Structure formats: structure tokens, C-alpha cells
């Protein structure tokens, strides 16, 4: 069975189409950056520091009642929200400089439970502002480090113009995915950073597969413009791009709908990232390489070691 015609010949990369795509990419990147600078991210307590309690009530939770009780007890800055179902409640409090956080945790739970022993303290997260800062720093470092290593690898395996294209695509994916979190104000926590890094891996996977085919066609299709042979390559890989995208999205949708509330933001980051990543490996990566005037001479293929298969784990 085939989803896609055996031989497609869609014009992805002619100058006109390319300009539209580049324009669109620039637009969404700019929108993301604007949103990031205006609205910022709804950072989870992993980064801001603070206290988070997940409490399970034996009956449906009365959110406004809980808010009132917390106001009265002096926790008027706390954020109360339903979590996953009607009986579970998430209460979040920012960092409390000048107060003993473990004591606040105990007091918060006392207020929430009202002494009812059936109220279940399902989860506590307490992160000091200092640890939050460190985690933010580590997350940022991890991204920069991953991007650098990948740039070096692609440069080594292909050529700098492709590496630039690949990394441009990755920046594009990361900015748009993070921008999506800024725009929707979905909680951005440590697991989302992990998801964004996984998106980097996935999107690159896509880009590299496309580049591999482009390289092959550059040497195979002599006398054809770079633009045309890239277009042929993208068409040839179209079935694979879509099928892999679809299977991955299917499992991620299963994770989003069945995996429980706490992997929600994580799944959303991956879903957005994979959609954007698929688009960018067709457009951003190839278009960047084309803009840098990539040509067949750039790509006299580095010999692939035929024994490599034995060396791989």
C-alpha cells in the first residue's frame, strides 16, 4: 500500500516557493521571539524555585473554596488549578525568600487537607531559588552544547554549508517550539527541556536523511542545478518523511492522551517540535544551504567506511 504516489514531483524549492517558505519561517520565528520577549515563559518551579503540591481529595475538589482558605491563611499568591481530574488539585507557590520552605510546605498541606486524613498528598516539589538558577543554567548549557556538537558532526560528515543549514533548521525548531510554550503559556518545566533536546535529535535526523539523499543525487544527477537536484531529493524522501512523522506522532498522541497529566507538556513539546522539525528539514535546512550556494563541488563525498557496520554498537 502507498500513501503517496510512487513518484511525486512537487515543486518545493523553486525560488518562488522557497521565498514563501523562508518568509513564513522568518514570520513564525519573529512571532515566537516577540511572544518570548513580551509574554515570556510560564516557567515551572524547576526554574523559578518554589513549592508545588499535588493533593488528591476523596470527593470533587472545590477550587474556589480552596482558594479562599489559602487566602485566609496568607497564601494569597498561590496558584490553584485542577490537575487531570476533578478530585486532584495542584497548588503552586513562588519562591518565598526569607521563609523556611519546609515549614511552608507543611503549613500549606495542613490548610489544604483541613485535618482530613483522607486527603492524599500525591506529590511535593520544593525547589530553592538557588537550585532553580542552577537548573536554568544547566538547561541552557545543554542546548548550546548539543547544538555545537551536532554542528561539528554534520560539518565532519557533510560540509559547512550543510552544517549551517542543519543548525539554522535546529534554531528554527527550538525557537518555534519554545515560542509555542510562550504563546500558549503551557507550563515550561525540566521535562520540556528534555523534549526540546529530543526534538533537536529528531529534526536533525530528518535533515540528515534529506542531506544524505541530496548528496547522493548531486553526484548522480550531473548537469542539473543544485536547486533541482535538491527538489528531486526532497520528493524522493517524501514518503519516508511522512510515514516516520506519522508513526512518531501516533505514539506521542498516545502518550499525551494516556500518559497522565505530568507528561502533558513534554508530549506537547515533542508533537509541536516534530511537526515544525519535519517542515524545517524540507525548507529551512535546504533553503539555507541553497542560499549559501551549495553545489556539487562542495560535496565530493567523504568515503563511508564500509566496515563501519561492524564498529557500531
Amino acid at each position, binding site marked *: 500500500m502507498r500513501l503517496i504516489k510512487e513518484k511525486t514531483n512537487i515543486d518545493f524549492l523553486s525560488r518562488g516557493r522557497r521565498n514563501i517558505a523562508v518568509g513564513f519561517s522568518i514570520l513564525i520565528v519573529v512571532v515566537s521571539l516577540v511572544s518570548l520577549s513580551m509574554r515570556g515563559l510560564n516557567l515551572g518551579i524547576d526554574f523559578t524555585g518554589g513549592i508545588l503540591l499535588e493533593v488528591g481529595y476523596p470527593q470533587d475538589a472545590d477550587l474556589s473554596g480552596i482558594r479562599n482558605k489559602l487566602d485566609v491563611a496568607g497564601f494569597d499568591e498561590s496558584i490553584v488549578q485542577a490537575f487531570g481530574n476533578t478530585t486532584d488539585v495542584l497548588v503552586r507557590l513562588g519562591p518565598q525568600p526569607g521563609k523556611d520552605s519546609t515549614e511552608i510546605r507543611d503549613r500549606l498541606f495542613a490548610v489544604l487537607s483541613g485535618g482530613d486524613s483522607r486527603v492524599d498528598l500525591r506529590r511535593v516539589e520544593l525547589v530553592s531559588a538557588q537550585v532553580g538558577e542552577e537548573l536554568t543554567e544547566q538547561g541552557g548549557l545543554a542546548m548550546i*552544547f548539543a547544538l555545537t*556538537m551536532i554542528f561539528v558532526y554534520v560539518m565532519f560528515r557533510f560540509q559547512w554549508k550543510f552544517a549551517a543549514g542543519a543548525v539554522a533548521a535546529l534554531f528554527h525548531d527550538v525557537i518555534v517550539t519554545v515560542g509555542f510554550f510562550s504563546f500558549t503559556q503551557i507550563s515550561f518545566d525540566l521535562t520540556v527541556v528534555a523534549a526540546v533536546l*529530543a526534538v533537536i535529535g529528531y529534526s536533525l535526523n530528518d535533515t540528515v536523511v534529506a542531506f544524505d539523499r541530496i548528496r547522493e543525487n548531486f553526484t548522480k544527477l550531473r548537469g542539473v542545478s543544485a536547486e533541482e537536484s535538491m527538489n528531486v531529493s526532497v520528493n524522493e524522501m517524501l514518503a519516508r518523511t511522512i510515514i516516520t512523522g506519522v508513526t512518531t506522532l501516533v505514539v506521542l498522541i498516545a502518550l499525551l492522551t494516556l500518559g*497522565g497529566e505530568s507528561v502533558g507538556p513534554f508530549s506537547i513539546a515533542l508533537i509541536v517540535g516534530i511537526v515544525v522539525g519535519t517542515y524545517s528539514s524540507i525548507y529551512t535546512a535546504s533553503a539555507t544551504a541553497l542560499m549559501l550556494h551549495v553545489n556539487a563541488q562542495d560535496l565530493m563525498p567523504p568515503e563511508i567506511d564500509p566496515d563501519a557496520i561492524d564498529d557500531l554498537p
Partner: protein
Amino acid sequence: MNRYPAWLNALVFTLLMVGILVALPNVYGTAPAVQLAQREGVAFDEQRVERVGQVLERADISFEEIYLKDGRIVVRFASLDKTPSAAATQSSSSENSQSVQQNARELLMGRFETDTNVALTEASRMPEWLRNMGLEPMSLGLDLRGGVYVLLEVDMDSAITARLAAYEQDFDARIRAEKIRPRVELDGQQVNVRLRTAEEMERAREIVREADPELIILDGADGKSLRVRMSETQIKARQDFAIEQNMTTLRNRVDQLGVAEPLVQRQGVSRIVVQLPGVQDPNALKNILTATATLEFRMVDTDGTSPGSRRYPGVPGVQGQILKREVIASGDQIVDASAGFSEGSPAVFITLDAVGGERMLANTMANLRKPMSSVFIETKRTPINLPDGTTSYRTVRTEEIINTATINGVFKDSFVTTGLNPVEARDLALLLRAGALAAPVFQIEDRTIGPTLGQDNIDAGFKAVQIGFLAVIAFMAFYYRGFGLVANVALFSNLIFIAALLSLLQASLTLPGIAGIVLTVGMAVDANVLIFERIREELSAGSTVQNAIHSGYEKAFSSIADANVTTLIAAIVLFAFGTGPIKGFAITLSLGIITSMFTSIVGTRAIVNLMFGGRRLDKLPI
């Protein structure tokens, strides 16, 4: 063409069989159990196993299995059909079985209290022959089994200050012994020694150098005083000591609390990570971890004439007293303590070590009919807001009298103190038994997952894997027919290999880890999609069937390798930078990438070769 040599087929088959065997323990699920460990890490023998079994049988506590594992005794109770995937519905029967587990723990604790710690745990229901091979199921992370992750910061400044305070007393005593009267004071990170003349200062310098040649001695501005500081190496040594000592104490406390498989680990210069899986009542436990409560015994200065006496407040309901400077016995001389009742009120029964016992004996003989106070000491860190908006912390030591009693008879190493409520008495006894912290510790990060959420996470996670997996399998079989089935076999073996490797490495499986597996399932088919699409291309370009298979695998390889290496880079970066749950994701993602390369390239090729290789075929089911 398209034939694997026999050895390669055999290798693929053997690896798969080994994978299945190693992954097998995961199939059986777990059941509540208790684990007995001998203090000081000594291994139990078969004799003790028998005795434990008899004790339980006599008390009519039925168990399914009792065995020795790594020198510890594990007693597993009736299972509840609690496989990792299906559970939660059985809450009522699980309460029952938990109480069996609790009863057994209490019984065994009472019976073997002198040398044994009894912990509640979960034990695998795998058959004996598997266990004897040393195989184990995957270990579940805290977010899946419930538990506590606490990051503690050790207050290094107080560790140094405590050492300097000891120097302060030591210098004072030594200099006085030379008939010089100095003024010795602790001043931040140094000890100031003030004297009356320059000659005295020179003499004092010698005494200090004699006391500890490594100390740095600086002259004071007035020519009559010395400033004594610890050298860098001493500070470093002291900090290391404080951390090591604290880790030992924390381990003791955790063991006493009955937590199986605790993890106490140093992180960086001044931090300690404590992980306590499967804890039922996390909050009570966390307060014990950071507690610094200890006791001191001092005589009451009845006529108020002894030098250095000062007033101590009492806890609510107890009168404050003026107490003498001299400490008769303190917490670090206590070798055993237990909570109970004395004359109807909660009490702590205390046993001192030999030195403490001797001092107590001498003191009680000399001070019959005079009052002695028990001082309860607690160190707390209170935050202070600084003007620039940041927060600093000040360590405050509170010392309060819990009781004052007249010495009515001579005693030495064992006695009773009262004046606390039952919970305080129980906690204090535990803390005294486990030893004091060398420096106060403070929680800077705390992630606690209650047991119910843990179970929910497991259920949700496994469901997502199941459904995602089924959807992908259905799609592949539908889209690539025969070859799709081959890819599905590879996908399934991939799951087995991931489970096997996780079991072998005993790396914790976390919820993000499950997400990593889900993602791998989605991405693992990519390699097969690349290969199959390539074979289709080759076929439509007019290649023969055998050539198409051959070049399909051949040509897709470099794409697959590049694609996987780049994802692996991201996963390794995640592993290097990530903490806790993120690491779990990185581990399953990297393992999944590696195993999927094997199953989707070598594995599927082996099957394809067996089915289609070397035959004259006109078309392929692809």
C-alpha cells in the same frame, strides 16, 4: 545472494534468547515484602533465615517465600496479582497485605532489635531458578514507585565554626595551664587570642603552634594578640569530614526508619542527595533527616556562683534554670537510646559509652541530692532578608531544658529522661541512636511522589506504551504487509532488548524514561521505513528482487547511521547535563537508539534473508 552466514544467524538468535531471559523477571510483578539487614553490614546465614521463618510462623503471619539475598533476608508475602500494568483496583486487598507486611515488620523488629534493621519493600515474584541466576527486574524510579528525593545542603560554615569553637576551648585551657590569663574569642572564621604583654603573646604563639602546627597564626594589630585561622587544607579536610560524617549519620537514620534500598550520595562540594524509594509516609521521614536534636546534661548552679554559668529557658511548662558551664554528658556519648514510658509519662531510656558513664558516675556520687537538668538542643536555619533583596541564612541554636530532677541515687551509664511528648521522645531516641550530624543540613530541593501517584504513573505510562506500540504495529503491517510484519518482529525484540538492558544495568525506569521508550518505538520504525522505501525504489527502477533487497539495505545504511548518531548526541548531552528524571529519559532514549539500530538493520535483515534470500522471486510482499 542475501544469505547470512550460519554464525551470524546463530548470533542474532542467541542474543534474542539472552535478551528474553534477562528481561523475563519483569513479567512476574512484585509483592509486598520485608527485608532484614544486619547492622554493620554483616551477612546473615541460613540459620537466621530459619529462625525468622519460625518466628513468623509462630505468630501466624503467612508468607510465600523467604530467602537470603546478598546477605540480607527477604520475606515475601502473598501477592495481589499486582503486575506492573494492572493494579490500583485492588486497593482494599492491598491494604490488607500491607498490614501483614507492617505486622511482620513490627514483630521482627521487636524480636531481633539488637542487631537488625527491618525495612518494608517490594520483592519480585520471579521463580527461584531465575533469582539464582542473579537476574533482577528493572528498578523503578521514584516517580513510579513513590518515594522521596531530597537534596541537602550541608552548612559548611557551621562545620568550620564548630571546629574553631573546639580550638577556642582548647587554647584557653592550654594557655591557662601555663599560668597566663588570655581572652580567647571566636570571631567569625578565626579565633582571637588577646594577651596582656608581647612576651605572653610569644609564649601563646608557641602553645598554639604546639597544639596544631598546621594552623595559620597572624599577629594582631596591637602587638599583643594573635589571630588564628585554619589552613586551606584543614578547611578542606574538615569539610570532607563533615560531609562523610553526615552521610554516615543519614544512612543510619534511614536504616532505622526501615527504608529498603536507600541512596545517600555526595553531590558536588557541599551537597548530599538522599533517595528513599517506596516510602509510605514521606513527610515524617524528611523531618527526621534534617533534624539536629540532641541532649546535654548539666548540673543546676543552685547558688549562682560557678564561673561561666548562664540561664537556660525551659520548654513550655518547664521552669528555666541557671546551669553550670560544665557538660556532664552530651549526645555524642550516647550509644543507645529507646523511647518508652517511665511512671506514666513518655521517656527516653539512655545508655552512655564508657567515658560518659564514668563521668556520670563521678558526678552523681559528688552531687547527691542536687538537681541536674536535661537540655534539649536543636539547630535551625532561619532565613534573613538582606536589603539587596537576596536571602541569607543564620543558624540558630536553641537550647531548652526539658526537665530538671534531683539526683536521688548513684548511676552511671544508663538512666531515663522525661519531659517530651511521645512523638518527640520517639524521634529523639532515634536521632540519639543514629548519631548526630557533624554540621546542620538544609533541604534545598525536595521531590516527593506519594505511592498512589506512583501507581497511577505506572498505569498511565504502560498504557501509553501499549497503545502507541499497537498503533505503530498495525500501521506497519498494513502499509508494508510482509515486510511490515518483519519490522514488527524487530520492534518487539527492540522492546525486549531495552527491558533486558535496563534490568541488567539496574538503571531506574522513570516516567520520562517510559516516554523515551515510547519515542523510540516511534522512531525505531524509521530505519525500516528508510530501508523499505529504498527497496521499493529499487524495485520500481527495475532491479531484480535480490538486488533490490541488497541495495536497499546497503544504501539506506549511511542515512540510518547518520540519523541515529545525531539523535544519540542529543541523548548523551541530556544524560550529561540532566538530573534525576531527565537522566531516565536520556538512558532509555540512548539504549533504544542503540538496540533499534541492531534490531532494525541486522535483525530484520536476518529474517528477510531467511524468508526471501537466495531464491528466485518475481516480487516481494512490500
